[in-house]
């Protein structure tokens, strides 16, 4: 008896390799200058789901992402790695969503899939590092959650139970939960498999070239996308039956008041000669201002 698994993934700007040009002069992030990548923790989540699929025959892995049309790239990548079905949740009305509005849209999309056993998410996304969307989605679905999971210890499709190892400060917990349950996977144990060459050949036609990360609605209707609806579906706000007021900006209680760029102030640095006297002077300053001693 196979399981029905859902994996939530996100395309993110590669904040780990940010460069000077990625910040605009006004201190905001110039997303166009940043490469868009598969959120690293989400790759671990996908791997966890694919490993469950390998142990329980007949299991289906559904991958959902919410984002602009270019986010189809992470779905394509998921197909190459072994996903069975993917859907892009995309609509202008989702724009400006904070974690709450995002979790609402994801909840609607998950309910469209129907009966499911487990939802896998990455622990957090590198653009915000909030780790909120997983738990918020679980609460909206009214299901249990196990967050910060390093390893699925065992899974029993008959009893409909999962046992997971959850990392906590200074140790771990082994937690058992019935289905359905949402788990968020961290980067400790699951090593993402590379895309399969055979699957790349198979889904080559499902592949749609990205368009540089800019929002282009015409792309949504492109013939290429339409041709591959069996493995990559496009779901807009009407498809997932979401309430417009709860989506995007209007569904987002948090607002960004101010953004400041973190400027590395190299001019503030005090260079100390590598001499006993200069180092002693530095130590003296640090003791005087109670940093040391």
């Amino acid at each position, binding site marked *: 008896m196979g399981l029905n698994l859902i994996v939530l993934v996100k395309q993110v700007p590669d904040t*780990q390799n*940010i460069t000077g040009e990625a910040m605009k002069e006004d201190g*905001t*992030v110039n997303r166009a200058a940043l490469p868009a990548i598969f959120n690293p923790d989400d790759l671990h989540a996908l791997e966890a789901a694919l490993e469950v699929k390998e142990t329980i025959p007949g299991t289906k892995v559904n991958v959902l992402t919410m984002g602009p049309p270019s986010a189809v790239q992470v779905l394509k990548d998921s197909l190459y790695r072994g996903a069975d079905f993917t859907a892009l949740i995309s609509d202008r009305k989702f724009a400006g969503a904070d*974690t*709450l509005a995002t*979790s609402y849209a994801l909840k609607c999309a998950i309910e469209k899939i129907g009966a499911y056993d487990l939802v896998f998410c990455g622990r957090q996304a590198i653009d*915000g*590092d*909030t*780790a*909120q969307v997983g*738990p*918020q*989605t*679980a*609460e909206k679905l009214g299901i*249990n*959650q*196990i*967050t*910060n999971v390093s390893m699925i210890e065992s899974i029993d499709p008959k009893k409909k139970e999962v046992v997971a190892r*959850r990392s*906590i*400060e*200074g*140790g*771990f*917990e*082994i*937690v*058992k939960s*019935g289905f359905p*349950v949402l788990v968020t996977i961290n980067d400790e144990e699951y090593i993402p498999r590379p895309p399969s060459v055979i699957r790349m050949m198979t889904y080559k036609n499902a592949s749609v070239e990205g368009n540089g990360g800019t929002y282009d609605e015409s792309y949504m209707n492109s013939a290429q996308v339409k041709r591959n609806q069996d493995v990559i579906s496009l779901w807009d706000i009407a498809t997932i039956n979401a309430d417009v007021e709860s989506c995007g900006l209007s569904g*987002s209680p*948090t*607002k960004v*008041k*101010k*953004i*400041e*760029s*973190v400027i*590395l*102030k*190299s001019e503030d*640095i005090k*260079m*100390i*000669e*590598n001499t*006993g006297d200069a*180092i*002693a002077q*530095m*130590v003296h300053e*640090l003791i005087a201002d109670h*940093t*040391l*001693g």
Partner: protein
Amino acid sequence: MSSKNSVMVFIQQDDGIVSEVSVELISKARDLADKLKVKVAGVLIGDGVAKKCEDLYPYGVDEIFLVEDKRLAHYTPVPYTKIMVDIIKKQSPQIVLYGATTTGRDLGPRIASNLKVGLTADCTDLQIGDYKFKDSEYKDILYQIRPAFGGNIIATIVAPEKKPQMATVREGVMKVGTPNPGLKGKVTPVPFTFSDSDFPSEILKRLREEKLVDLKGAQVIVAGGIGVGSKENFKLIYDLAHTLGAEVGASRAAVDAGFISKDHQVGQTGTTVRPKLYIACGISGAIQHRAGMSESARIIAINTDAEAPIFQIAHYGIVGDLNDVIPKFIKAFKAKQ
């Protein structure tokens, strides 16, 4: 005494011990509450933890709502969410704070999702101020300040339209206030009836070890990178740390090279630290490392490469061989003592 409009803190306990971050949050909540002229409330959930309340009053909490049950001894999301949602609905606090621990990051989002209110993760600062948006002006709003985009920007987030305003706050960021034994508070037990369906998670095993390496709690950290050169040479790092009463940290490269165990790793995949002083020895300062230590109050960089990025965030830079610099440092400190 009503806790309406209060600043509320989720008081986290692990194995019956109140977490350090909760005391930090009570201290911060006291500051915020004094500005807002309201009370500080706390919620403590667990089993046999009532006696812990006494210890918390001196930090400025006026009223602690206490929920006890055998099945609440260890945190699990569903019952804790149910309790917090219920208490928040009844007490209508204007602000609720959680530690950005694995528990707080698990619990806070569920509560926010249930109440359809905002939540800002991993705040490094909280302030009270006004906010104008279109034609509306909001007074005394919580500014929730946090790093984003891998630490490349600092964002100030507000959630003016809905109450409570909620935030998780990183451990070690807020200062613990001086306890005032004259401050008195009260505990209000809150009865709850649970059914089995409230406990969908069963904890089969739980292992928590007191960390031998306490990077988070350290005031001073001496960290070594690949430039230390060998496991044996890490003795120099230990020597300096010992002299200064500091903890020993390391870059990922040093850990991967086998110089030192992973417990010591500072950075995005290790521990995030904010000591008073961070001494980076032979660490080039990749963004992943900087993300874990750039908020240190003072940074000293010691590196042979004058172009190493670590110098961009350091307050003191010494271009030189750590084998040469560290002994001078030790000698200078001992002379001042």
